[in-house]
Structure formats: C-alpha cells, structure tokens
C-alpha cells in the first residue's frame, strides 16, 4: 500500500502529502486525479494531483480539510499507509496555443499547477491569476510562479495582490492586453461559473475542472454526472475537464449539496471524538 512519506501544513487547514506510489507517479498526466481510502470504514475521496515525480516514484496531494474524511487524513502521520487508485480521468489537452490564462482559486490551485506547467512546457505564455480569501490561503505561490510566465494575485480582503476576485483581475487583463487563446479555471464552482460567464460573450475558449461527488471513479456509478451541453456526462471518465460554456453550474452546485446533512453529522461526530487533536477545518463555500 502507498506510504505517506511527508506531511506539511502549507496553509490553515491545507496539508500537502508526499505519497510513495511509483506506478501512479509514472503514469500521471496533467488534469488527472486519484481516489484515496484511509481505512476499511472510510469513504473513497477523490483528490487532485498537485505534482508527481516519476523518478522518485511519488505524487503530491494538496488537501483542504473541509469534512470528516479530509480532517481525519490530516491526523495521519508520516509512514502511515493509505489506499490510492489512479491516475483517473482524462488528461488535459496540452498544445501550443499562444497565451494561456490559468485562473486558480483556493484548493483549485493544486490541480492547476501541473496543467500550468504542461502548458508552459508546450510553449505557451502562461499568465496565472491566483486568488483566495486572504494571503495565506493563496497556496503554492512559489510552485505556480515557476510554472508560469507571469503571476497576478487577488485576495478578498486585499491582504495580498489586488483586492477583489480573480474575475476582476481576468477582466482587467483582457481589457489591457486583449483576448487570450485559452482560459483554464479551477476553483470553487461559483468561481468557475463566474469565469465562464465572463468569457462566454467574449468567445474565449474556457476549460474548467470539476470536482463532484464520486464513488468508484471509473464510470460505474454515475454519481458524478453533470449536465454538459444538455447531455449527462460523467466527471470521472468524460472529465474532469469540460468546456466551461456548456456546463450547467447551477445544477452541479445543487448536486454538490446532496449529502449536506450527512456531511454535517459525520463532521460533528468526528470533532466530538477528536476534540483535542483535530483542527476545526474550514467551511465549504
């Protein structure tokens, strides 16, 4: 079973895990994800891959502690073993297009990293716009700087970069320099929806990566389905990336709330039994 080699807290309620899993590391391509299972009573948690090192045989997972299972993962120690399956999902379509704007918000910055890197390696000009509520929640800044040609930051509270949302920065960028060839946006659903609505009238090709409720991750259960261009698509195998202008974000956001009451039960029950150890986690927006 894969071993957790290194665990680092990179921001409040954000942990970075270095996982030893040579076969996945060798095969991982930008845009793909894994599913982890912590123990035999656990649930299967889809997690994006922030980085991989084929030679070292490791992948890097960045996990925001939002619910029972991610908080429980946060209590694990280096040397512990977990089950990991992957790499799942269809890889990002990487090609030289010209200018690529990568928009990342919150936990969405993690899966954006390998995509930005691949787009830059393919010869694109990569302008990354990263945002968060406050400075310390704009994660992976150094790594993203290395993977991009230019960085723009925004924070809701103005503690870092421009005060405001990533969409404000994107709008300004387009006003100043014209339309980019592609926008790739990964973050909270509401952010991706806002980006899609901004770029749609401008007819800028826009890709989003979705993170829906999932069980097997191989197209068997259909729990992850989203409405894309009027058709039902499975995020786990048809995605996770889709044309942002065809995704029904409103329905997707509602479906993400399917198990809201169960999630709260599990979270409270967990916090009750781990009073002294667990961090409180963060609210999901």
């Amino acid at each position, binding site marked *: 079973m894969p071993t957790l080699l290194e665990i680092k807290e990179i921001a409040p309620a954000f942990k970075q895990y270095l996982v030893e899993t040579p076969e996945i590391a060798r*095969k991982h391509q930008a845009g793909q994800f894994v599913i982890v299972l912590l123990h035999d009573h656990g649930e299967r948690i889809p997690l994006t891959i922030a980085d991989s090192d084929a030679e070292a045989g490791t992948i890097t997972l960045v996990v925001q502690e939002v619910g029972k299972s991610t908080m429980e993962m946060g209590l694990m120690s280096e040397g512990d073993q977990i089950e990991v399956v992957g*790499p799942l999902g269809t890889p990002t379509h990487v090609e030289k297009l010209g200018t690529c704007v990568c928009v990342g918000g919150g936990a969405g910055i993690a899966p954006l990293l390998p995509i930005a890197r691949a787009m830059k390696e393919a010869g694109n000009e990569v302008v990354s716009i990263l945002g968060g509520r406050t400075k310390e929640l704009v994660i992976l800044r150094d790594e993203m700087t290395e993977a991009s040609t230019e960085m723009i930051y925004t924070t809701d509270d103005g503690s870092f970069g421009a005060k405001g949302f990533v969409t404000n920065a994107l709008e300004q960028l387009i006003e100043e320099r014209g339309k980019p060839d592609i926008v790739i946006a990964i973050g909270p659903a509401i952010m991706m929806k806002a980006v899609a609505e901004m770029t749609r009238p401008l007819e800028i090709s826009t890709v989003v990566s979705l993170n829906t409720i999932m069980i097997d991750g*191989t*197209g068997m*259960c*259909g729990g992850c389905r989203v409405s894309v261009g009027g058709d*039902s698509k499975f995020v786990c195998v048809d995605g996770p990336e889709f044309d942002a202008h065809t995704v029904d974000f409103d329905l997707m956001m509602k479906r993400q709330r399917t198990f809201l009451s169960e*999630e709260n039960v*599990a979270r409270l029950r967990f916090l009750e039994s781990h009073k002294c150890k667990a961090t409180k986690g963060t609210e999901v927006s």
Partner: protein
Amino acid sequence: MGRELTKKERMELPRQSMPTQDPMDRIKNFDEVALGFTAEMAITEAERCLECKKPRCVDGCPVGIDIPAFIHEMQEGDFEKALAIIKQANTLPAICGRVCPQEDQCEQVCVVGNKYKPVAIGRLERFVADWEVAQGGEIVMPERQPETGFKVAIVGSGPAGLATAAELAMRGHSVTVYEALHKPGGVLVYGIPEFRLPKKIVEDEVGNLKKLGVELRYNFVVGKIASVQELFTEYNFDAVFIGTGAGLPYFMGIPGEDYIGVYSANEFLTRVNLMKGFDFPAFDTPVGMGRRVAVVGSGNVAMDCLRTAKRLGAEEVICLYRRTRAESPARLEELEHAEEEAIDFRWLSSPVEIYGNDDARVTGVRVQKMELGEPDASGRRRPVPIEGEQYDVELDTIIMGIGQGPNPLVTRSTEGLELNRWGNIVVDEETMMTSIPGVFAGGDIVTGAATVILAMGAGKVAAEGIDTYLRETVKVPKARTA
C-alpha cells in the same frame, strides 16, 4: 444405511423447502434470507436424484459440474468427497449455490422435474460448500499442476475473472488478477446485497483462490495505470483476459434525471454493499435514501434495489415496470421474496418525467400507463403507452434499475480491439480470443448484462482457450526469454 430406494420412491420424496427468515423479521435486517439446509434435509434431497446414465443436468450447467457424482456422495453422507467433485469444475461453490438461476439451468432439465419438482441441485451445492466452512478446518482446493512458467493477467475480479483465474492456476500458470476497486469480487461485492450473498462468503471463496496461487492486485485500473498492450510489453504477460463486466449504468433519458435523489442501481447498491452505507455514520459513506422510493425496472438488480430500500427503512417502496409480472426478467424466487416483503409492484407503468424542487431534490414522478402490444425482437409483447392515462406519484428517491452496458474504460484504451455496436467485445466463441492475438474476454463485457454463472462459464471456456494458445502458439514463456 437402509435398503436402496426404488426410482419411484426417490421421485416421490418431496423436494425439501429452503428454510428462510420470516419476511417481517428480515425486512429489518441485512442477514441472509435463505438459511440453508440441515444435513438431514440435504441427504433427503440428495436421495431424490435418479443418477441418470445420461444426465441432462450436467449439460445444463454452464461450468459442467458432475452433478450426479456429487449428489451420489451426498447420499452416502460423504460431503467432503461431494465438494471435491464440485470444485473440480467450480471453485466458487458457496457463491454459485446462492446466486445461480438453477431453475433455468441444471434444474430445468432434471428428469425428476418432468413429473415432480426437480432435485434442488443448487441448494445441495450451497450446503456442501457451507458445510466445509462450518467444519472449521483447512479448506481443500484442487491440486495445481506443475508450473508452466506462463504469466496471465486477468482484468477484473468479478465472476468471469475469478473463474478464469482459478482454472488457469490449476493448470500451473502464474495468474495475476487486477481489480479497479479496493476489494475483490466485482458485482459480487458492489452489486449483490448481503442478504442474498454475504460478503464474508465472497471474501472466503476469493481467499481460497489465493491458495491456488492466484495473485490479486487491488486499486489497479487497467486502461489508466497500464494499458492492455503494456501488460504484455512492460509487465511481461503472455496472455490477457478481459472480464470487466457490465459496469456502465443506463439512465432513461427522461427530464429530471439529474435531480438529487435519482440514483443508478449501481450507485445505490455500491453505497450500501461495497461501502457499507447502511451502517452510516459508523462507515463514512452515506446512502442518502429518502422515505418514499421507486425503483424502475424488474430484473434481478431492480429486486436487489427494492429489497435493500425496504431494509434501509423506506416507508414506501414501489416498483415501476413497463411490462407485466410475466415478462419480468427477475428470477421467480427473487420476485416472490420481494412480494413477501410488501413491495408495491406497479406493472405496466413507465416514468416519463421526474419532478424536483428549487434545491433540485426529487419530489415526484409522472407515470405513463402502458398496455402490451405485439411481440418485439425479444419475443416479449411490446409495452405501448395508453394515451391520456398518466398519474403522478410523490417520491423523494428514484433508482434506475433498467440495465447496465459495457464499461468502456478498458475497451476504449485498447487499440485494435473489435467491438460490436453496443460496445461489447467481439470474441471467437470457441476460444474467447478477441481481435487481438493473446487477448481474451468473457462475461458481461462480451454478452451484455447476464448472470454470475454464465460469466463463470465463459471464464472456463476462455481458460481453455488461453491454455491452448499458450502451449501451441506462444510455446515459450516470455519470462524465460526475457
């Protein structure tokens, strides 16, 4: 033993009925419904067999168990010998004894059944398998032939894959089974519920395969972590068997199917069976089922969903099926069990639209009344809508149990693999070899959704095909030349 029974006396013995949990008790638990024969019942039932010289039952068995021979040993009370005979042909007897549709196979052609009820072959198989486990000793498996040095990869650990693996291991080949999920068994663990097939039994029987030398790798998605081609080039296998099943859920394509509370049967059953969602929050995966539940479809999978919903505490459980009870594809035994458990069957009823509220949660369904018209391609009378006859049902959960297709994950990633228009793999029926030399396939991925035992039967045929291919075409194991 007393005097030998005459043929007439044998046939006149009543078929022993299976003790079951009382319906009103069992809808409150997930324990097995059928409790199994006692030794006395098993011997009496065995006495009913005429030991025909030309036994038709053996031909009726997809894996060709020597049925009269094992039943003969049971008449003598030698359960150990009886089981050894079964295991020569079938290494998963406790599973097959429970989930095979014997009424359409061995028992359908049983000569006793011409005039009386057929010998309860399936229940006898189950009895001896359970008997061995109850003895508590070492489980005896057939002997493995000397090592051949050939390596075979099996993709998928469902019934087809497990049967192929066992057969190849007995023939001395080195076998590795790759499973995408974190537990072995495929549909036996994610699909079939605990009350019909306890997961402990699947675990035990898969464990027995390990004794035969079969190796199992979990969390390994062929098509992602390694392609079929790479199993040959990078993993050094001499042959590959694809048994990935019918894992693609079908939806109806009616409005409202993406609302919260609409599940595929696969999702609903996986949450409950594989992830143990019935025991949330002790297990982390919730099911999220409501109080008024409808299941669309009337096959075995639909029966499993209906009866699972009942056990999870649904107040109302409705079956919506567009044909009638007579056309229902479920096993009669499953249908009867569901009826005993107070499922509300609405025949000739087909959903046309699902309603939801502002939160996108299901609130109800509009049902179209149907009537039976002319027979269609399947030979069954085609359901046609009765104009103007629609009604609404208030619901919070609706489960689609209308069938599954072939999961395209492996087939799409395998270049040169010939598929039919439904996406099933095309094979040579004699050898089960696909359009790619050395790549074999069997089970639901070839036939479309069918039964556990048909998949196992296909696995046995494929094992024979693979064995011949290795010896006559490959000749020298890759591991030896590498």
